[in-house]
């Protein structure tokens, strides 16, 4: 059987999302920037999707900028809300590469994290001053699932860096956290549709009230000039549908998936020696993430044998060649390079079943035993 436990990489599409998209890939093919009836039909869909996304993310419809996904949203936030120069951009050391590398392109600096991946507020405070244009701290870490204390971050930023705007990459949080409530403290919020049951290649950036944003792409007047380019109508409609379902079903999903995650983590750490959760017990974490260090095992080998058994998991990030690179997140958390190469991520989703968990629990001990032999 197959156990797909890589929902942090991408999720299967929710049926509601796919169904909502199909008309805009077929009869309603119009370009919403036109003026005739076919165009207007597509524009209505964009407007309705914008309303839905705004409702779910807790912002005004005019504050939603549709993008091509999380990477573009993060780049638009970091590059669009900062000017080049030393000390203008600050982000946590465990950000997704979309933020980290955009920050680096601005000559920005990173803030260290603790053993659980939580940002070091004292260290951040020391780096904040009135030169800072933008601070970027993710709501939930995509690799290990740690939740960042965004309200504390925001309070510090407002106090010490009066000019700075706060961006949060909420890509890994949607469907698991109350993003609308938690991100009211942020000026800019990134989300990506395929992480919550929508299609790949579409996302959004929330740009709160009057926040000026320089476009990264130059072109037409779409998205009020903040993001030119013909709208991906079907994608946007699909994202809105998925976001509605994910938001409305959130409490139930978190309860259901959290129970399964706990069973997986407890089962693996009791049935196999020297298996421990990467994020220490008690740290705030999303319900979907089961990130483990499997002592004495190389993650590349573990993933191959799990794949042979039908288990889809992941580790680290892939480089251009497809090889797994040591995780910058784990190294920033202070894991040794050896432990970082022994880590594996199981990420559950709304559709994860008990059978899938049972399958992993049954195959993992023998796989690990073989690799340790």
């Amino acid at each position, binding site marked *: 059987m197959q156990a797909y436990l890589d929902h942090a990489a991408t999720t299967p599409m929710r049926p509601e999302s796919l169904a909502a998209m199909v008309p805009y890939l077929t009869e309603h093919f119009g370009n919403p920037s036109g003026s005739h009836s076919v165009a207007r039909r597509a524009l209505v869909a964009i407007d309705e999707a914008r309303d839905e996304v705004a409702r779910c993310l807790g912002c005004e419809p005019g504050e939603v900028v549709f993008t091509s996904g999380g990477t573009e949203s993060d780049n638009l936030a970091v590059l669009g809300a900062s000017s080049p120069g030393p000390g203008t951009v600050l982000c946590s050391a465990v950000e997704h590469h979309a933020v980290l590398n955009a920050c680096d392109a601005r000559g920005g600096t990173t803030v260290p994290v603790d053993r659980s991946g939580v940002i070091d507020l004292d260290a951040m405070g020391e780096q904040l001053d009135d030169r800072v244009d933008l601070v970027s701290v993710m709501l939930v870490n995509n690799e290990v699932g740690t939740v960042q204390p965004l309200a504390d971050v925001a309070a510090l930023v407002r106090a010490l860096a009066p000019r700075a705007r706060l961006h949060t990459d909420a890509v890994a949080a949607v469907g698991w956290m109350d993003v609308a409530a938690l991100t009211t403290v942020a000026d800019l919020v990134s989300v990506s549709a395929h992480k919550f049951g929508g299609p790949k290649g579409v996302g959004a950036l929330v740009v709160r009230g009057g926040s000026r944003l320089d476009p990264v792409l130059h072109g037409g007047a779409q998205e009020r000039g903040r993001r030119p380019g013909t709208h991906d109508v079907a994608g946007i409609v699909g994202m809105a549908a998925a976001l509605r379902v994910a938001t409305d079903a959130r409490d139930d999903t978190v309860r259901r998936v959290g129970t399964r995650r706990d069973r997986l983590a407890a089962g693996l750490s009791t049935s196999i020696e020297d298996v421990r959760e990467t994020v220490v017990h008690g740290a705030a974490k999303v319900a979907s993430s089961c990130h483990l260090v499997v002592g004495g095992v190389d993650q590349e080998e573990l993933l191959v044998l799990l794949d042979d058994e039908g288990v889809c998991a992941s580790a680290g990030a892939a480089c251009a060649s*497809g090889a797994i690179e040591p995780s910058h997140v784990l190294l920033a958390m202070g894991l040794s390079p050896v432990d970082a190469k022994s880590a594996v991520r199981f990420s559950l989703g709304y559709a994860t079943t008990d059978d899938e968990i049972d399958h992993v629990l049954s195959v993992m001990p023998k796989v690990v035993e073989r690799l340790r032999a």
Partner: protein
Amino acid sequence: MRVLVAMSGGVDSSVAAAVLAEAGHDVVGATLKLWGGASDSGCCSVADVDDARRVAEQLGLDHHVFNFTDAFEDSVVAPYVADHAAGRTPNPCIECNRTIKFGLLLDRAARLGFDALATGHHARLVHIDGAVSLRRGTDPKKDQSYVLSMLNASELAKVVLPVGELTKAAVRARARAIGLRTADKPDSQDVCFIHSARGRRGFLAERMALHGAELVDASSGDVVGTVPAGELVTVGQRRGLGVAVDGHRRYALTVDVRARRITVGTSADAVGGRVVVDRTSWVGPALEPGDRAFAQTSAHGSAAACTWQGDAVVFDEPQPLVAPGQTVALYDAADADAVVGAAVATASEVPIASEGPPEDPSATV
């Protein structure tokens, strides 16, 4: 048989995978990421990984990319730099075969449940009565037994070399016949982690100090020139020294990076009869001192008759000097295609003592 094929993205390993798959084996491809630096050739460029993956897809094989960059750095690149710093001439491809491909990857293949590891090397493995012998490939121009000569029988027992029986032309013909995208891809030539635009010098200059050295004529003792980096000079080298004496080109005879001195001599000086070696390994039974053999001292050189002395080979006829650090592959005296073992040269003994002044290392620098 379950076989893991090391696929570099070149035509030989592509055809190796195809041959095994056609024979009905359960084949999985793996490409190694060995190098993270700016490199335009070799196994780790993204284009080569793409080629390997696309060939695997075409053949219907699973394909993995394994990251061995840390081990490659420690076992291949760092020793390569250290050898140059000591005035030796390393062979990083042999170190990679020894420690990575037929070391870590072979171990990994076993842990992942594979019965064998296959590569696209042009050499043949012959199994008789439970013993394995390593032989030259069928195509004499492409034979790669030299770069596998340091493997032992227990390693070779878990290895398959599917293209060793084929000429290069036959490999390409086979690739064309099944429409593999790598059919006409040029052979890789250079060290994979050396970028052709910056060269060996540019690479080493970032990792070690390079020092100028004097060129001292072996017969007269005169300083006849200088080179900007003594660490880049190889014993036996003629090109790039920029020195001629009495209209005759000079060859590097010895490299002393500490004294920053390179002795040079004529082509007649640049031969030796005896090569001292260490790091000896054997495919099967070890040679005994006094045993006869053929020795090959470079990847594309020819083998010459010699006598094994236990810590040296003595050639029947004088041979071009062998730079310290180079592998000496030993072939069977009675069966010149069969590898018996390998060793690494530490010194070539040069018959120049009769002429010229006595050497005094403190005299130069």
